[in-house]
């Protein structure tokens, strides 16, 4: 799958990711003579040379820009830099030393050792497959519909969830949403009330791209299909008592619930 960001310094790179979880300072974080990370980086002893180096953002002294020049002189540069949010020190060093760099990347989707190609403003993740799904929250008189997933479904058996389903090739997410609501609840008069920004969640070699929708429904009776065994209408404040699928709270957040 492709993950799009923003180009800071142009270039191409191919290789394995090295993902640092914390803000990083080249000054003090890596030995410029060897390219080996120091204890300050939290990953002491590993080399950044020829890796696509991923970290949230830079920190520390402006002198850090020059450390990238030292790494260049000694032949230990990373092949590219990927940040969630670029700042001056690292960006300056990257341009000075000629290291391709992008930012505005959701680095929670990246794992150490992933194979990637960096081109222009994005990453092509060679081993990652994107799965696009809709998730549809139904609301009736202020209460939300929870469905208990059956033992016949592929994932999250027995957990409580909203209506959901894969977006088929060529389908628009809204079409999928209406179709799934009808299939899983029998309700055909749902009214689209809002949609949230797409969420991305890493799961092994997959990334779930979740398109959240909120529907307002009337008194129509709920008729379940094979995918669910029970249903319940609950207040948002009572959700805590239910074992819900991963990311459910995030879905409600982006829908403003």
């Amino acid at each position, binding site marked *: 799958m492709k993950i799009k960001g*923003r*180009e*800071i*310094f142009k270039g191409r790179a191919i290789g394995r990711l090295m993902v640092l979880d914390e803000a990083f300072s080249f000054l003090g974080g890596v030995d*410029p003579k060897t390219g080996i990370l120091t204890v300050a980086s939290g990953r002491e002893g590993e080399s950044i040379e020829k890796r696509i180096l991923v970290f949230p953002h830079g920190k520390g002294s*402006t*002198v850090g*820009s*020059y*450390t*990238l*020049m*030292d*790494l*260049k*002189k000694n032949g230990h540069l990373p092949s590219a830099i990927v940040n969630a949010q*670029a*700042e*001056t*020190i690292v*960006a*300056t060093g*990257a*341009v*000075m030393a000629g290291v391709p*760099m992008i*930012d505005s990347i959701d680095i929670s989707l990246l794992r150490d050792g992933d194979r990637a190609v960096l081109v222009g403003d994005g990453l092509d993740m060679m081993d990652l497959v994107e799965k696009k799904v809709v998730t549809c929250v139904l609301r009736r008189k202020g209460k939300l519909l929870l469905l208990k997933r059956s033992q016949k479904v592929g994932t999250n058996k027995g957990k409580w969830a909203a209506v959901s389903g894969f977006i088929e090739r060529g389908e628009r997410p809204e079409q999928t949403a209406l179709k799934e609501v009808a299939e899983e609840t029998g309700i055909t008069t749902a009214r689209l009330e809002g949609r949230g920004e797409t969420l991305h969640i890493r799961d092994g070699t997959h990334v779930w791209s979740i398109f959240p929708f909120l529907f307002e429904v009337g008194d129509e009776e709920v008729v379940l299909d094979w995918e669910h065994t029970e249903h319940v209408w609950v207040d948002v404040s009572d959700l805590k008592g239910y074992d819900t699928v991963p990311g459910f709270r995030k879905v409600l957040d982006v829908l403003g619930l």
Partner: protein
Amino acid sequence: MQLTPEEQAMLDGKEGKAKRKAMELLVALGAIYGADRLVPITSAHLSGVSYKTIGEGGIDFLAEMSEDGKVSVPTTLNPMGMDGERWRDMGVDEHFARRQLHIISLYERMGVEVSCTCTPYLLTNRPKVGDHIAWAESSALSFANSVLGARTNREGGPGALAAAITGRTPNYGLHLDVNRKATHVVEVEKGITKDEWSLVGHAVGRKLGACIPFFRGLGNDANGLKSIAAAMAASGSVAMFMVEGVTPEQPDRVEGLPVVKISRQDIEATVKSLRTGTGPDLIAMGCPHLSESEMKELASFLDGKEKKGDVEVWFCTSKGVWLRCPKEIAVLERFGKVLCDTCMVVAPIEGTHKVTASDSAKACSYLPGLCSQKVHCGTRRELLEMIL
């Protein structure tokens, strides 16, 4: 960011390698900060001069840029790691001196004025109200924004060099009116003297962080403003401040702004927090570099007195001020060394000294980390009394 055809040509490498690299850097910074375009500048001031801070990597970068790079606006340099002539007196070794002078020659090749000072505004590089400039050196850029009314962001050395070469800088931050508004009102307790403004600045920066403070009823003193700018920049990344009735820009309104008071207690707490050592083996003044009037004050105070003890004393200043003060230098040299183009923070004193005393809260903040020093912080009068 929208580029003019001329700027695009630089980015495409049609005007040489240095302009291309410079433009690549400005475009990257412009993207990060959401600049709409580049704005022409009237001057630049560069950090990244001391061999101690930029090292061989820095030399490589400057060597590349100076192959075909020339600055296109008046450009000055920050202090280097030693006095260009008296480096042996400072205990600087030959290798360091050779590499340091090489750095200066690379800047010179690019057309940069190579007297090295953090107070370029006291000499040839004094921007006017409303001028867009690209300055590194946190104390100088804060002075330029605040006291001179020029407009600059907190540039890094390479970003300022890129701006100097292209004559442009990304239009964001303090280049825009909307970001030049006071955020806090600061009231300084009566009885706190201008000798203590450096400590006031440190306390404000520590309390408020990056902000634009408006000082009510502070008064006016050119040397004090230089100290307060330096201290606030070091402790709080403050890039601009206003002083009632003094700075060219004043707040549109102060009602509703949070009010912060700096008391005698705050000053005492500041001194205490900065004091990590006693019995200094170096007493250093001139952070920022001493002005002509400070040299005169020091000389008239010390004239006719005798030095007691053998603690080394440095008076750091710019070549320009040094040239104007021959009589004062004759007095000061009886007490210590009057050094040009360098200071206690960028010189490699970690090899020669252990405990440094300074009247600059900025120097006292940086000396432990950059120079492995224990620090004795005091007012200038207190420092002078240590040697009398």
